[in-house]
């Protein structure tokens, strides 16, 4: 009997919690915002991007609407590091423009709110660029020599063809190899509850660097590096 009461109690509590958390289609546009992301920090960043009206002009996933700047391919966004270029631009807006409607200023937002916008812009851009690079209808044939030159310049400070990447060309092939280097598993690994992992500088830096690279690879770079990695048998 005691167990039955406990079960009823648990069920009642679950029902109350479900009701409290349920969101109606009138108050939350799942069609536009999409289902919640597993990473709550990113989910908050995405919702901030919607709430302050950025998503309407620039597109939630940076597929631009209207005459707004294409953030997926903007050079400024590609060069931005933790908001060093985006923050001041958001605070001031772009009143000097040939466009019909100037980009508004967001000087009333807090640093945290601007930070969330910056986080979403970089995340959405890297996801979008990954899609573009991996879903191209006619992928380019890469040049391994040019790929090696790119690797030596951008990757060799952390990776080595005879070290951690030895045999990678044997392990993966074609599209799988491209996917593996564009988006290493560490990028999508969920956040850990372990404080030592959360603040592990090596992982944090690696994630940031790979995201920055992913945001800026051209289709040619991606094909060339893939061709070079394929030679590492």
């Amino acid at each position, binding site marked *: 009997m005691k167990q039955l009461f406990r079960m009823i109690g648990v069920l009642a509590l679950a029902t109350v919690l479900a009701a409290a958390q349920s969101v109606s289609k009138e108050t939350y*546009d799942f069609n536009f915002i999409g289902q919640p992301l597993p990473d709550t920090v990113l989910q908050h960043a995405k919702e901030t991007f919607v709430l302050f*009206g950025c998503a309407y002009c620039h597109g939630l996933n940076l597929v631009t609407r209207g005459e707004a700047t294409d953030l997926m391919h903007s050079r400024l966004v590609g060069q931005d590091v933790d908001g060093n270029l985006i923050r001041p631009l958001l605070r001031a*807006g772009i009143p000097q423009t040939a466009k019909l*409607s100037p980009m508004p*200023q967001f000087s009333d937002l807090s640093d945290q709110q601007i930070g969330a916008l910056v986080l979403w812009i970089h995340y959405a851009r890297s996801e979008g660029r990954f899609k573009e690079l991996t879903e191209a209808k006619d992928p380019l044939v890469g040049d391994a020599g040019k790929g090696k030159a790119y690797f030596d310049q951008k990757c060799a400070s952390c990776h080595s063809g005879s070290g951690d990447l030895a045999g990678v060309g044997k392990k993966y092939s074609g599209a799988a190899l491209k996917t593996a280097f564009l988006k290493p598993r560490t990028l999508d690994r969920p956040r850990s509850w372990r404080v030592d992992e959360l603040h592990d500088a090596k992982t944090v830096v690696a994630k940031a660097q790979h995201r920055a690279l992913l945001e800026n690879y051209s289709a040619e770079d991606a094909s060339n590096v893939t061709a070079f990695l394929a030679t590492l048998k």
Partner: protein
Amino acid sequence: MTKHSRRAFAKLATASVPLLTLDAHPAEPPATIINGVRFGVETFSFHDLPPAGDPQLVPTLIRDMKDARIAECEIMSGHVEPMGSYATGWWVATRRDPGFPKMREDARRWRLSVPMEYYGKVRRLFEQAGLSIFLYNVNFNETFTDEERDRTFEAAKELGAAGFSSSTVLSEAQRLVPFVERHRMFVAMHNHNNLVDPDQFATPASFQKALDMSEYFKVTLDIGHFTAGNNDAVDFISKHHDRIVNIHVRDRKRNNGRNMPFGQGDTPIKEVLQLIRDNRYPIRCYIEYEYGSFRPSTEEVKRCLEYCKQVLA
């Protein structure tokens, strides 16, 4: 708590309903009227529509207007024609795209060859739903040919529109003078808040230049953009009410500030609506929803209208 009898409650309920009437009487255009002020919607407000050219676009728009209980609209050309406004040169940046000349030529060819019945069918869909198109929103620009301008005026007539609303520029307004005179149809200039380009509509002075060109030039005053450009919407309406066809009701902050939920920005929405109500200006007030929200756009349009109802109560 005050107790009401069933009869008293019914009386109270019916007394509040006429604030918003969706009157589809065939002899008169349908209207959404709140305390004497006539409301409509800029179709740009509905963000969840199928893409241009999709046969479900107009039926979805009609469904959304009925859901929001708004009887008339200013319909964007991209919601009527099978191509978005960008294909007809609205955005300067798009005009620089390598693919633009072909896209523009295709759009022109479509406009010049489509039977006028195409537009008549759109008008009938609205009429059958008890709704009406008051303005055709076409953003005239230098990429239009004269033949195309003429054809666009014919299209507006077939849609049943009284005239145009247009996000255009002063140099194009000059080109439009012979067309508005010949077709005897007005073009209402819509402003943004670009204060650095003297060709744009953004200040009282820029409007005045167009108003001086022809009596067929009118104003669609976007009170949100006007406020973001640090202009005084109440003052402008007081002085130019006889040339203002409609206003776009939106809320923005001053100094090129962002779009805000109604009542939270610097735009004097309350003062403007009360000015129109108290002076019985025949200026229509069109909701334009653009700020960020988690809600679907139709729900948000309803909230915008509800805010207007409250400030006019």
